């Protein structure tokens, strides 16, 4: 399991899953750093992204736009995206804006990783 804090964004990998930690206020500056980190992880072969919002108090419009961009890139790379540890306001905002149609929300990182494992198993089953 490797850990990196490149460009001030904390992240670590578990197999082909990257867990990226969002900061307290997801705006342009921090959003772009997260986007770069996600791109980097996908380029390195990750097939699932868990974005952990445990430190995030607020997501503004720029943050929403950047998160949609990350979802897009992940879809193009055939990767899954799970958002974990969101506060109530952020969950409501994502629901109102329709982001929840494209990502799964998990209570915490562990639940996100478990969900990904079950997806992988289902995919393997379907694949065989």
């Amino acid at each position, binding site marked *: 399991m490797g850990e990196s804090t490149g460009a001030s964004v904390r992240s670590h990998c578990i197999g082909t899953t990257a867990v990226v930690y969002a900061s307290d206020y997801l705006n342009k500056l921090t959003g772009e750093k997260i986007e770069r980190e996600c791109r980097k992880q996908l380029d390195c072969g990750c097939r699932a992204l868990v974005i952990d919002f445990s430190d995030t108090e607020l997501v503004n419009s720029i943050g929403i736009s*950047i998160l949609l961009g990350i979802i897009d890139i992940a879809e193009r790379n055939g990767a899954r995206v799970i958002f974990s540890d969101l506060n109530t306001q952020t969950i409501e905002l994502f629901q109102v804006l329709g982001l929840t149609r494209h990502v799964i929300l998990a209570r915490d990182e562990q639940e996100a990783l478990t969900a990904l494992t079950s997806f992988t198993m289902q995919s393997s089953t379907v694949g065989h």
Partner: protein
Amino acid sequence: MQPSAQKLIHTFAALADLGQEIANPGDFKDMVRTSLHLLLGTLAIRRGAVTEFVDSQEHLECIAVWGIGKECGFSLAVGSPEREAFVEGHSLDLGAEQQNGLFAGFIGRHGAELRREAIELVSPMVVRGKLVGLVLLGAKASGEPFTSADLEVVGAMVRHIGVGINGNRLLAQVEQRAEENRRLYEDLRGIYRDTVRAFAAAIDIKDKYTQGHSERVGKYSEIIARELGWDDEQAEGMAIAGYLHDIGKLVVERDIINAPYKIDAKASTELNRHPTAGYEILAPIRHPYADIPLMARYHHERLDGTGYPDGLSGDQIPLGAKIVALADSFDAMTTDRPYKRRCSFCDVVDDFRRNTGTQFDPQVVTALCRALLKEITGETRERRFLKMLGKDYLKAEEAIPMLQQLVTELDTQRQSVAAGGGPG
């Protein structure tokens, strides 16, 4: 919280952020990119682009994209009919067939490409009745169609972005004009300086014994001004004043100027007309530097009031004229004349000592001495004095103590005057 309230707060916050972004733009492209993010994030639109008219009112170029596969790949053309529709504020909904008659030409040219990139809405940026560009928007993440409220929000935000782009364009035009004016002004100043130097050469050619005098006086004056702490503009002005100080000699008989002997009183009166004549020549000209004509007029005035043409004394004489007066005398003493060889450096220093306070201003003499000391001691790399004086004119080991002694004396006198003791 009610979903509608949540959405409203999110929209208000985005509008506030957008207003701030437009009002305080830093880097233009960054401003547009941020504005696009704000617009997309407000309604959770998955992709979009901002395009701007470049060079003409026909072709649009992408200046920001998000979520679109190709980087700024759109190159759109807007014809006359659709431009009118856009200027009237109509957006183009690529899914609404009934509206598309207004934009038939545009859709014919670009519809397929826009649909391929999943663009659903084209919203015009109109500022003061002029189409600035178009904003292209994809579908909402919710998958729902744009509501009329959404379109109101899009319209408001797109107008903001248009104002930002238009403001940047106007600013660029103003900056370009300011730069052109600055260049023109620099050219004019260059022409002025060249003309002045040509005049200086013409003045000096008339006096066959003092060739290069005006140019040297200009350079000495500039050095003294800089030593006194004057800024570049003022120091350049002093150089010009030095170049032109003797321009009045152009109206004095050549025989009087070139007399190889001490001239009589009548000729002397004629020669002494040159400061006033110089003033009259220079006064009608709009110089880019202050007081050039006055410096020509007063460069033979003396601190004790015995100079000419106006017999001014002390503070009545502008400091610039005092600088030119010292530079003029310094060059006269350090260059060969028809009736006498140049003075030794020791004699020059003695002359300064004798005449400071009566003919020369102490602070100006001190400035010249300090500037010269800096060159001789190597404190400055410049060798402007030494080049003009010639390498054999002074010996450092002799000149340095003489200059230091004079500077000390002048400082002591100044302190004594400041303390109310009067000159020593």
